[in-house]
């Protein structure tokens, strides 16, 4: 029941209410600092796409962690910051392959671990490498060490890494990737650690980790190399790229990976003092075909699908023209990358129809296509669906959440792999072509080889390419392996994608060839490296 009676403290009329509300609002607004949240000159604020789980090298599982540990640790070798996969010396002043299974090294003198853990020695190299292959460690990353047998220590600074058999990927995947830790420091914390390393030796030191928020690094005063450019680096764990874009626009980040669909809008309406860099990503996207499924047993059907898929259209629609069609799982710029595919990116719908007719397929042919719920891949499969429809193949898209999808093709998790027909796959490669192709060998049948592709020559070349140190020979072998994959009809290679970054003009960034931030190379724009 309303009342017009005016008595007591509730005698506030409409005008009073509006006046007082307005005054209160103005008071609040007036008290707020109209500040720029822009970063300080001696700090770098950067997005990481997820939080770190551990910085202990045997157990790291994502690129998010390697972004951090490459800044705080030293390897024997490191990748150059020129956008290539070439390596240069890091903690080592000398590193040489004596033969296919022996690598001699000598450390620079006076490289000091933090937290009073003393000078880096050859024994620390032995400890750091051998703990990764120690069976008691159950290290996820043990396979990266390949055929490592042991490390012989000759004196305080020099030693020899001994492999059991030739392992051509040792330099990029092990020596230039896994850091050297202090035996004393790691042993003192029980032999393994999590997100708080007991020692650092790189240009930056680990200062703090705030779960689901950020990791803070600070300049290492004992660093003997080129001086670290920033007093502090704040690495924010931001899973959502859109939130990172907003934070960048609000001035809270200096550099952030953004989504491909945001590149166009940013180009049209660039935030002040900012620029874009678009780098290829190390991710490999492909359409896989399970050749043991009855609908895809006939090679002609698989070849028809290869010809039907217009990769150029898929890439254009998915990456807005920023990415290029892939030549295979091995990305451009890496040893083993082909210069063309056997089937042109545009495909050939006429040839696809002819192959289906030759195979005696009654149209429309209905096929199932599984894909995880990633936005990029969902876009890609819709264009694939459209491409296949043009030749009479009706595709039912089944979207799965990522964790479900990742186990669909694995035999140990059930029988569902038998029902899989087409699937959109993506996988992040590494610094050596071996890592891009090893998943398609016969040994991987039932694990990650969901296409059930099996070829003797492919398996033999995979072993040979890993055992030879002749780069030209390896290049030829890896190219041939990708031809074999394509000839099998099990694969339609889509793209390696891109990693767009937005950067403040006050920063001169450095990224690896697969698009990850190389924090050591970041400098203020005015500073020369």
């Amino acid at each position, binding site marked *: 029941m309303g009342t017009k009676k005016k008595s007591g403290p509730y005698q506030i009329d409409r005008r009073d209410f509006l006046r007082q509300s307005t005054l209160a609002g103005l008071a609040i607004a007036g008290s707020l600092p109209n500040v720029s949240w822009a970063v300080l000159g001696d700090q770098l604020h950067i997005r990481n796409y997820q939080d770190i789980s551990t910085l202990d090298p045997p157990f790291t599982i994502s690129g998010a962690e390697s972004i951090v540990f490459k800044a705080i640790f030293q390897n024997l070798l490191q990748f150059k910051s020129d956008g290539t996969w070439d390596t240069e010396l890091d903690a080592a002043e000398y590193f040489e392959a004596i033969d296919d299974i022996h690598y001699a090294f000598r450390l620079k003198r006076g490289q000091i671990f933090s937290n009073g853990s003393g000078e880096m020695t050859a024994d620390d190299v032995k400890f750091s490498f051998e703990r990764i292959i120690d069976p008691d460690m159950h290290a996820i990353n043990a396979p990266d060490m390949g055929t490592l047998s042991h490390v012989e220590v000759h004196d305080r600074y020099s030693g020899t890494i001994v492999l059991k058999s030739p392992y051509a990927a040792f330099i990029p995947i092990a020596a230039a990737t896994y850091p050297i830790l202090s035996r004393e420091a790691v042993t003192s914390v029980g032999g393994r650690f999590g997100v708080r390393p007991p020692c650092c030796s790189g240009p930056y030191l680990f200062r703090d980790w705030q779960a689901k928020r950020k990791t803070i690094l600070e300049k290492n005063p004992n660093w003997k190399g080129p001086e670290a450019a920033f007093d502090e680096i704040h690495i924010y764990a931001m899973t959502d790229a859109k939130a990172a874009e907003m*934070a960048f626009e*609000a001035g809270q980040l200096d550099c952030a990976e953004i989504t491909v669909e945001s590149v166009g809008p940013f180009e049209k309406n660039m935030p002040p003092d900012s620029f874009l860099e678009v780098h290829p990503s190390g991710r490999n996207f492909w359409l896989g075909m399970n050749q043991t499924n009855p609908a895809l047993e006939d090679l002609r059907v698989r070849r028809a699908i290869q010809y039907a898929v217009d990769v150029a259209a898929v890439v254009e629609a998915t990456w807005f023209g920023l990415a290029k069609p892939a030549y295979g799982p091995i990305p451009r710029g890496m040893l083993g990358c082909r210069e063309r595919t056997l089937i042109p990116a545009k495909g050939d719908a006429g040839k696809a129809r002819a192959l289906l007719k030759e195979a005696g397929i009654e149209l429309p042919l209905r096929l199932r296509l599984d894909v995880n719920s990633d936005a990029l891949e969902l876009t890609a499969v819709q264009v694939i669906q459209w491409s296949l429809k043009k030749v009479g193949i009706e595709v039912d898209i089944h979207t799965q959440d*990522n*964790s479900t999808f*990742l186990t669909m093709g694995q035999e140990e998790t059930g029988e569902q792999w038998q029902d899989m027909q087409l699937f959109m796959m993506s996988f992040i490669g590494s610094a050596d072509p071996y890592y891009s192709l090893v998943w398609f060998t016969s040994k991987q049948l039932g694990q*990650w080889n969901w296409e059930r592709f099996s070829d003797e020559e492919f398996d033999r070349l995979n072993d040979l390419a890993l055992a030879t140190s002749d780069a030209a020979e390896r290049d030829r072998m890896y190219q041939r392996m990708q031809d074999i994959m394509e000839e099998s009809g099990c694969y339609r290679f889509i793209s390696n994608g891109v990693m767009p970054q937005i950067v403040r003009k006050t920063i001169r960034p450095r990224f690896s060839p697969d698009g990850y931030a190389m924090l050591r190379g970041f400098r203020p724009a005015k500073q020369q490296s």
Partner: protein
Amino acid sequence: MLKFTARRALLALIILILAVSLLFAMIHMMPGDPASVILGPKASPALKAELSQRMGLDQPLLVQLSRFYADLARGDLGVDVFSDREVSDIVFEQLPYTLALVLTAIGGATLLGVPLGCFSAIRRNSLLDRVTAVMSVAFIAVPSFVVALYLLLLLAVKLRWFPAMGAGADGDVADQARHLVLPAIALGLGWVGYIARLVRASMLEVMEDNHIRTARAFGLPERTIIVHYALRIAILPTVTILGLGIGSMLSGALFAEIVFSRPGIGKLLHEAVITRNYPVVMGSVLVTTAFFVLSTFVSDIINAALDPRLRESGKSS
């Protein structure tokens, strides 16, 4: 009152056990092999088997559930399979951020919604009542994430009055409060309208009651009538709704935590579900369910304290 409280506490405990058991079963029945997801492609079958065994996933579901409760009785929520950290440490590290957000949002919504609802009821059909009605419906209708995005664009990106991400520096209460403003508004705005409409409707009903008419006939001041005789009864459904609201906000905080890049239990749970990190999922689910049950329990107790009839009947409003 003591008997009522004990009865309610027992009921809350039963609800908690049932809810957590149900969620445990549902989570473990989701497709997807945690060992494959967690360890990635490099893991050998032996390593995967070892992890499955370590997580107890090789046991029947009932055995896993009984182990979960046995560990819980010892205060052990397990270990995060990624970082090897205690789940209890991880959950209680994130919980304060979500609680601060939820309590600020619901507190702010109550502080605004209750007076607005009262005022609308008292000034029924006035311009302000109509404006409040339109605004309330608008606040309720607009999805919270839309509010969040516009707040971000306007107040963080354009005007830069508030930060766009994070939770503020540790130990700096003012900074943390500044970081709370936008997410709390985004989360609580819909509740302002909801509470205002609820209080208004309840007040209008109560103001028609005989005891209010009698109080007026006795010449009691309007303030006394409204606060002591009308609002005290009219607030009962709102208290119940607030109890439920806190619970739903605990899970609803996820969008605010993602959009504003805040740490919190919602984001923790979301990421843990995606990666099938079961110990963290169960730890987060247990804590959020416990808070949901606790908040409804507290609202029942408050209702009973405000209305003695509920104590006697043992029913909540």
